[in-house]
């Protein structure tokens, strides 16, 4: 698929901007702070309903405006779809598909697929586990939009269970201590309160296991499918230097966590039982600390180069290439899965790579249906990848002949 046209209104630094696009390579060139990334951010938002730069929507709306609008004309197999989003902080976003409003903006997911690589993605290698979990989950949704619903359900279960652990922890702890005293000292109310808190916790455990095991299973399968593409992509970018490994670090019991780290993907039913068993094991600690300690929200993906973990050991350039490898692997995975190319966006990528890696990356993406590149220094972008060029200056976009 490719974008034929992008227009934004009151988005970031833009009052309004129109950007006609074509299949093939388009390069946005401009000095720092002129608004190149804002445009690719808008494209990313249209595809994923979230920004790769900020967690809240407020900074996306131009200062002084009440709402921002992003509009994209997406062409797939010769058919054009108009995707529109209205972003209004503090209110629900509104989405329209071919001018008809959708009841849930979530339904817009899948109309435009992108793989966006930006400097922030360095966090995939150097950052917190949350960054890697988000990468996996967002790729899951891009592959099958139905996972957006499962993710949302899991978050809801977590919030409810977390609230319960916080509020019930004093009751549970007190009950535990009082049990040691003579029976007549322990109030009947405390005992029954404790029992009902435990029963309620059991209920949320079973919901967490049910939704959590589905999410976990989906992530493991995704990682298994992604692995081969990652190896190939990293090798191509770095010209055959050390091999990449990805292992899922699960918060489940040691034995199962070990099997998962070794690359095994247990069935959903088994994972469900394992989550329950692991929850039972850590219940004491959970009650003590008042936090959910087991589940996909505590997991991580360990990335390594050769025998060493990438985090902490890899050089800046290696980390950069690893993150790039992950994104390119995601691109390949989506391409093979859906039989259609997502739009590839490379935001400020070339400045950080050596000449050899630049050339190889350019060669790798040459056959993609549509590639959007941003660069502050045009000379950083290999000549083979220049394509159509736009100059971005202070929130206005003009084509460079």
């Amino acid at each position, binding site marked *: 698929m490719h974008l034929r046209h992008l227009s934004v209104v009151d988005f970031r630094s833009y009052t309004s901007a129109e950007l006609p696009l074509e299949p093939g390579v388009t390069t946005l060139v401009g000095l720092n702070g002129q608004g190149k990334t804002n445009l690719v951010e808008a494209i990313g938002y249209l595809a994923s309903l979230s920004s790769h730069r900020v967690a809240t929507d407020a900074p996306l709306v131009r200062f002084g405006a009440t709402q921002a609008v992003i509009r994209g004309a997406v062409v797939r197999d010769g058919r054009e779809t108009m995707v529109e989003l209205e972003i209004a902080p503090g209110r629900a976003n509104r989405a329209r598909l071919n001018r008809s409003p959708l009841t849930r903006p979530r339904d817009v997911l899948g109309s435009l697929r992108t793989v966006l690589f930006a400097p922030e993605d360095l966090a995939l290698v150097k950052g917190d586990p949350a960054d890697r979990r988000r990468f996996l989950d967002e790729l899951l949704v891009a592959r099958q939009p*139905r996972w957006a*619903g499962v993710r949302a*359900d899991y978050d*809801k*279960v977590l*919030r*409810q*269970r*977390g*609230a*319960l652990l916080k*509020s*019930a922890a004093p009751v549970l702890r007190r009950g535990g201590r009082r049990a040691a005293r003579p029976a007549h000292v322990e109030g009947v109310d405390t005992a029954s*309160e404790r029992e*009902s*808190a435990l*029963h*309620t916790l*059991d*209920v*949320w455990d*079973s*919901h967490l296991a049910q939704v959590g095991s589905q999410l976990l299973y989906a992530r493991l399968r995704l990682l298994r499918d992604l692995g081969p593409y990652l190896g190939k992509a990293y090798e191509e970018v770095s010209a055959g230097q050390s091999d990449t490994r990805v292992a899922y670090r699960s918060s489940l019991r040691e034995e199962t966590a070990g099997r998962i780290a070794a690359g095994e993907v247990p069935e959903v039913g088994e994972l469900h039982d394992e989550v329950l068993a692991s929850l039972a094991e850590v219940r004491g600690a959970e009650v003590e600390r008042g936090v959910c300690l087991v589940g996909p929200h505590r997991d991580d993906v360990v990335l390594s180069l050769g025998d060493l973990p990438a985090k902490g050991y890899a050089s800046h350039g290696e980390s950069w290439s690893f993150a790039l490898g992950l994104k390119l692997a995601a691109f390949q995975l989506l391409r093979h899965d859906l039989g259609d190319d997502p739009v590839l966006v490379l935001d400020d990528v070339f400045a950080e790579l050596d000449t050899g890696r630049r050339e190889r990356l350019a060669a790798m993406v040459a056959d993609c249906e549509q590639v959007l590149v941003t660069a502050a220094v045009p000379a950083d972008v290999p000549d083979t990848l220049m394509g159509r060029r736009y100059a971005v200056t202070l929130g206005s976009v003009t084509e460079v002949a």
Partner: protein
Amino acid sequence: MYEGAVQDLIDELGRLPGVGPKSAQRIAFHLLQADPADVERLAHALTEVKLKVRFCEVCFNVAEADRCRVCLDPRRDLHAICVVEEPKDVVAIERTREFRGRYHVLGGAISPIDGIGPDDLRVRELLTRLGDGTVTEVIIATDPNLEGEATASYLSRMLRDFGLRVTRLASGLPVGGDLEYADEVTLGRAFEGRRLIDV
């Protein structure tokens, strides 16, 4: 801000569910201009509802006497109890005329975020009702959302040892609807709960 009494009325109206500040203002000025007799009737209805309406001592549905209409009706089947979250759910099920048993209104659903646990619901009262062995089936009809499901699984755990038939309302496709408009979760549930066709 308006003069004392008007602003008080707007504030009070604004606390009602579904009424924002703008609507509250509109209703307040409508009342100011309305016929005194009309306003009197509304005020009377408001006081009456608090004075007269109570909760049924058996099922906790709204009632005007000690017991609600359903619990007083001798034709109702004493062997089945349908557990719902709110009195308005009783009305919804009554409209179907499908169910001839009696009800039990919990008064909400388990939601730790809102500070509602099983002890804040009328669960203990339900267990007491089941004590004498008359009831043989409990139908759990809580809402099919996360909190309602949690309440349903909590209840089914509590009822496990009573030797009752415990059932849960089915989830699935709406009657008269189109398959293509169903969301994935509903359609997924419908698949899970599919039935053999008797020929």
